[in-house]
């Protein structure tokens, strides 16, 4: 971050910019890194629950994201065709609906597939890969193979100009806000409610949790559904910044897993830190290298750090 600002300063100074313009460049560059951070965080939150807490390798996580995005697209189409007056306010409804659509599919998936595979975590990878193929093809059959996008309400378009020379896109702010609100909701849910307590108890010691009267099977199912629902909300939020296609989810899956693994499975704080670190590292490196090489450098750096610290950045205190 600081390196980037220094470089931006240097560039700006050498080109003879005024102080206001330099300030503008700094703010906009910092915001680009924050946008990437919010994307990583949104992607990783659901997986931090499913993979981090439950140890299920959900390769179909990207498809739950896509599912939320398509729900939004569908709702925007519905509004546009039948109730154009509501177009300004459909979006919050779409996010809630995306949560329930992805969550209920997740509920069914847990019931049908995942619950048989808790003893064999690596096998969940294969089964969910199969699931992701089925879901992708379902999207393709229903929504078509072409990229689509939702119609955005007026208030999400355009950009803010807090002062001269600074352009901050509103959808970027919205995405950042959405990721922060969602994180807070997840943290409150996991650490400050009875249901979160049940989830953590089941993860830490399943037999003991069962012995004190927690319905561990139901807890598993609700946890998985919650993770999928959060992915759905993330997908809905993504429609503000880009278009969606049936196979879009697959593009994010490796990044998402790297964020969760790097942060330390089982720790939400770790996930936030990892998303921030990887996003900033990548946007700084993109200044020096081309975009794809920055990606490689970040991947290798993450692998290297994981080698030194196999448990990830933040180690959850769980007695095994």
């Amino acid at each position, binding site marked *: 971050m600081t390196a980037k600002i220094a470089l931006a300063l240097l560039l700006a100074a050498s080109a003879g910019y005024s102080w206001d313009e330099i300030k503008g460049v700094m703010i906009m560059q910092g915001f680009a890194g924050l946008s990437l951070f919010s994307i990583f965080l949104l992607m990783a939150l659901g997986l931090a629950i499913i993979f981090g807490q439950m140890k299920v390798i959900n390769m179909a996580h990207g498809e739950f994201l896509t599912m939320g995005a398509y729900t939004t697209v569908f709702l925007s189409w519905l509004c546009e065709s039948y109730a154009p007056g509501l177009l300004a306010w459909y979006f919050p409804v779409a996010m809630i609906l995306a949560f329930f659509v992805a969550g209920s599919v997740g509920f069914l998936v847990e019931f049908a597939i995942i619950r048989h595979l808790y003893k064999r975590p690596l096998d969940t990878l*294969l089964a969910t890969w199969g699931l992701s193929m089925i879901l992708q*093809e379902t999207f393709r059959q229903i929504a078509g193979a072409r990229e689509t996008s939702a119609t955005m309400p007026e208030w999400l378009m355009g950009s803010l100009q807090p002062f001269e020379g600074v352009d901050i896109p509103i959808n970027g702010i919205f995405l950042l806000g959405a990721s922060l609100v969602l994180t807070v909701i997840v943290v409150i849910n996991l650490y400050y409610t009875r249901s979160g307590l049940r989830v953590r108890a089941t993860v830490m010691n399943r037999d003991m949790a069962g012995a004190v009267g927690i319905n561990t099977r139901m807890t598993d199912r609700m946890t998985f559904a919650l993770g999928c629902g959060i992915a759905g909300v993330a997908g809905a939020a993504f429609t503000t910044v880009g278009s969606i296609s049936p196979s879009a989810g697959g593009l994010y899956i490796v990044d998402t897993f790297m964020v969760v693994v790097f942060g330390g499975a089982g720790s939400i704080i770790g996930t936030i830190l990892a998303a921030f670190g990887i996003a900033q590292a990548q946007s700084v490196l993109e200044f020096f290298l081309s975009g794809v090489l920055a990606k490689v450098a970040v991947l290798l750096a993450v692998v290297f750090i994981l*080698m030194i610290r*196999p448990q990830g950045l933040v180690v959850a205190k769980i007695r095994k």
Partner: protein
Amino acid sequence: MNTLYRSMLGGRSGLIGLAILAGLLLIVFPLLLEPFRLNMMGKYLSLAFVAIALVMCWGYGGIMSLGQGLFWGLGGYCMAAFLKLEAARNIASEAGTDQIKALSTVGLPDFMDWNQITELPWFWYPFKSFPLTLALMIVVPTVIAYIIGTAMFKRRVGGVYFAIITQALCWAMEILFVTRQGWTGGINGITDLRTLLGWDIRTPSAQSSIYFMTVVGILVCIVLGRWLLNSKFGRLLVAVRDMEDRVRFSGYDVANLKTTVFCIAAAMSAVGGAFFVLNVGFMSPKLVTIEPSIYMVIFCAVGGRMSLIGAVYGTLAVSYGRTFFSEEFPALWYFLMGSVFILVTMVFPDGLAGAATRGVPAAWRWLTRNFREPPPAPATAAVKEAQP
């Protein structure tokens, strides 16, 4: 002799399974399939090397590698580099003058020319010699596997984490190969490969010889794999998979064991990649990314993660199904394949091999339940014959 027979061929039942596979691949397929389909089988079989490697690494060793495409691809790229240099030399020596004029640098692969590279990069020099290429084809992936293995296993990174890290490494390699266009041919890969030491590999007769070479390679790998898995090394691998700490407490170097099997798997995969290039005449980074690597694991899972022979059948079945369905019913393919993966992992964790060795005898017993004395020997023979 007797111990060798037991350990390498797996005794009588193992020998029957191997003989059926050999008969199918060496006699039945060449007789029944037209040259085009036979070449396709050769292509699939070059993927079966990876499936066999994964049986050793994942089925027995418990190390799931989602980046096996990396090693397969490196082997393939080594072979492709040699063939490409030969093709470039041939163009320089035999082609007409107009083609020479079209190239600014004679003897350089065409994609380098397109990317304004005027001198052969230093790491391309060894691929001028065939023996050196063969050596590098094995050595490069093995050394990389050794580095990854030592780094990860010494630090006790395993299971899911290892799988995700190998996946990321595989992705990183793909990005590098795609972006370094002048060195690797970029997204198109290395194409237009024609001759191997002056032997035109595109003629039908050459294609069928390469098919037979591939089959022999597969059989050698199976025998070698059996020998390894039946030795003390194989026992230790299973022990590491099932109870790693106990093996460590017994005084064995677990990291070393895991690294060794990972290196062997990498070398075996690399050989498969080289055969792939000979079979199809090109190499592309699209074949070595995340998705193909997951497919490789799926070949192994469908065939049976504990069966070397099963891995070959699994590869052939999935690859053939993929080609068949994407030709006939492209939409159905994804639904069908997705359900197969889910079903295999949930219902048949031992894949085709498990279904054959357990399901068929059970069915046989059920069918013959009214006849009290079916001799056991025909029952086992029936199992083996039903396996394909």
